[in-house]
């Protein structure tokens, strides 16, 4: 009886690619860039096509579904804004997102999200982990899960990169029981880790000696500490080494001014543009976070200010992914931990609302031009079949080629499903 599991095949393939890439590098090529030289072009293309990636846009705090994907104009809870038609007949979105309205044929939308947690502190991790059944372990965030299940691409770049405002660093807690090394490499404000580039005053030979010394110290350090901690510690240095080979990713001078303007010069625009470049460079999972969506006060002016930036940057991103053919191998998801209440509070805000909200997606494996689910006319509940985040995890894993009904993690000797075992993929969303 075979005990192998899908991700083990993934590792094998990756090892093969890694070996090929290493061979290529040894032959004078450089990593993945040399891959085509060792394979038939058609095979290389096929590998590239099948090497799926994921880009998650996370609107932290909870974007209002009523001011974005699921407007209810002229209803008691509809708010001040109008809705506008999209390129999908009969489907309207908020007037605050005219560019995304034109991209709707390239998107799939779920308007019947119904989740359990109305708190940020517990809701964020639940959504990020796909809220699996409680088995007494801490499940990984989506990015860490993908990092484990699919590993790095042939590029060798770190598999989980998080572009966020504020500070960066290596965020090991996202990895849960998988172990710290599957954490997120966070690029604070889209900047590379400090001192990434070797200073000119240090020659490459001197740098090599330093790295050997570091490894030696690491081994001594490791002897006195837990294995997973050491692994992560060592891994962070390896990641830094890898990134040093891709410093051009962070060189904003290489950006086209037209791209800057299309994405926007605000945080979200800059970070979404960096995300596209990270995806193009081969990062397996990129998360872009925009903070500050917890609009308990002044919700409508807040969305009037925020939504045009979302509209601008995400529509530019989708446009580029499709124009470059990346939609065939990149899954894009736009979501938050919940939506916002239909009821408008006394400070003209909307509060937390997991009862009926929306998630948007596009890219590989996704049936674009689809709207799944429906809310009541006043937006106060889901009218059709409700979907939880577990359904989405099954769907997204399936979209990137993972059989979430069969695949399992191993936590020591404990097999664990990779998504909620009572839930299933949403076939309407998949090709």
């Amino acid at each position, binding site marked *: 009886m075979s005990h192998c599991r899908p991700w083990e095949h993934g590792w094998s393939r990756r090892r093969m690619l890694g070996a090929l890439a290493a061979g290529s590098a040894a032959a004078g090529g450089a990593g993945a860039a040399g891959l085509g030289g060792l394979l038939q072009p058609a095979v290389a293309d096929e590998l590239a096509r099948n090497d799926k990636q994921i880009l998650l846009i996370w609107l932290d705090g909870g974007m209002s579904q009523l001011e974005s994907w699921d407007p209810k*104009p002229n209803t008691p809870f509809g708010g001040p804004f109008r809705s506008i038609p999209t390129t999908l007949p009969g489907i309207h979105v908020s007037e605050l997102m005219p560019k995304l309205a034109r991209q709707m044929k390239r998107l799939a939308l779920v308007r019947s999200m119904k989740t359990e947690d109305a708190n940020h502190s517990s809701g964020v991790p639940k959504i990020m982990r796909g809220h699996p059944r409680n088995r007494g372990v801490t499940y990984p965030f989506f990015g860490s899960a993908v990092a484990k299940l699919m590993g790095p691409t042939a590029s060798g770049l770190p598999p989980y990169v998080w572009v966020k405002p504020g500070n960066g660093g290596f965020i090991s807690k996202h990895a849960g029981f998988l172990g710290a090394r599957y954490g997120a490499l966070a690029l604070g404000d889209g900047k590379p880790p400090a001192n990434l580039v070797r200073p000119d005053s240090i020659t490459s030979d001197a740098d090599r000696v330093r790295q050997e010394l570091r490894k030696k110290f690491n081994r001594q350090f490791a002897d006195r500490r837990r294995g997973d901690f050491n692994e992560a510690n060592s891994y962070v240095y390896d990641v830094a080494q890898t990134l040093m080979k891709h410093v051009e990713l962070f060189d904003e001078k290489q950006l086209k001014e037209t791209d800057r303007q299309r994405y926007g010069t605000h945080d979200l625009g800059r970070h979404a543009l960096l995300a596209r470049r990270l995806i193009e460079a081969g990062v397996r999972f990129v998360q872009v976070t925009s903070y500050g969506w917890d609009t308990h006060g002044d919700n409508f002016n807040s969305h009037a200010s925020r939504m045009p930036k979302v509209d601008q940057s995400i529509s530019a991103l989708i446009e580029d992914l499709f124009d470059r053919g990346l939609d065939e191998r990149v899954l894009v998801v736009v979501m938050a931990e919940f939506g916002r209440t239909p009821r408008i509070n006394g*400070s003209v805000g909307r509060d937390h609302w997991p009862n009926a909200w929306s998630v948007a997606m596009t890219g590989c494996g996704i049936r674009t031009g689809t709207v799944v689910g429906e809310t009541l006319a006043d937006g106060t509940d889901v009218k059709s079949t409700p979907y939880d985040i577990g359904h989405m995890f099954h769907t997204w894993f399936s979209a990137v080629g993972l059989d979430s009904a069969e695949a399992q993690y191993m936590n020591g000797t404990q097999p664990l499903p990779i998504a909620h075992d009572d839930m299933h993929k949403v076939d309407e969303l998949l090709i």
Partner: protein
Amino acid sequence: MADAPKPTEKKPPEPRELFKLDCDRQLMVARFTACGRMLVAGGYDASIRRWDLCAEQTVEVDRVEGHHGWVSWLEVQPGGDLVFSADTWGRLQATRGIAGTPEIAWHHEQAHDGWIRSLSVSDDGQALVTAGRDGVIRVWSAVDGKLLHQLKDHPADVFAVAIHPEKKVIVTGDLFGVLRRFELPGGKCVSETSLAGMHFYKRIQDVGGLRLLRFHDRGRTLICAGGEPQATGRAIAVPTIHWLDWPGLKIRHTARLGAKNHGFVFDLAWHPGGYWAVVTSGQPGSGQFLLLKPGQEKPFFNTTKMSNCHSLAVHGDGRIVVTASNRNSQGNGAVRDKRGNYVANFSPLHVFAPPGSEEKPAAG
């Protein structure tokens, strides 16, 4: 040595709440008609609500329909019979006979492309000016709704607009706390003044603090009100009013009317008793109704009994109405009433007798 006894401070008289009117939806603005017979209000249900003050007991009468989205602003014609109302879908409407049998005198379905942010009527009641989220300022004939002037391409989302009593100048306040002065009829922008502190940017959100503009004292004073924003998300601010000399635009006096985690001045009006009546709203339950004498930094009366105050109006007889939002209006998740219904919030209207009035609160 014993301290000298402090002179007894006489507590100034305070306004007394006479009665409260119920409204089943949230309101953004309330005004008394020029004749004083009717209280009119607009809000989240796209209609003009009316309360007949001359009835034995104040009662709500038929609504005036026609608007969409929210009725974002409403003003009465000084000395006239018209009520001007604007909504968030761009409709501008003039209603005649609102104290009796109302009829729409004129309207523009698309006076602006979307949210009409502000509306101001000239002192003589002959012109009104509107500012939209579309970045356009328009001046209209109050009598027939004819477009008189149009100022296009305002560089930012306009939050506030006012027309000078002489009708030769319009001022606007935008999302970035910039005060602009435009000359009529050409519509040329002749000055820009940044009101430091009335704008905040973080995490892809601009929070605008300049939300209300009013000329006062026959145009010799310009009032810039709103708040000094401190954060995005909850959009907290210090409620702030600046009084500026006109036309020099020098800040003569500033009153900061709350803590950093409070909110914005939502409305204000000059009371014939010689003071400003002001309402503020921000953090849940942080609404204030306060009375402030000219040149003072602290109000002589302040109550926080009403949750989140959004508008006020002063009647010719001195009574003041304050619209608030109901308490317990906040809540994450599906907070429901006792019957299990998911209900909208609503705006009670509190009617006050001015300080020193002998009027007694209504029984019951």
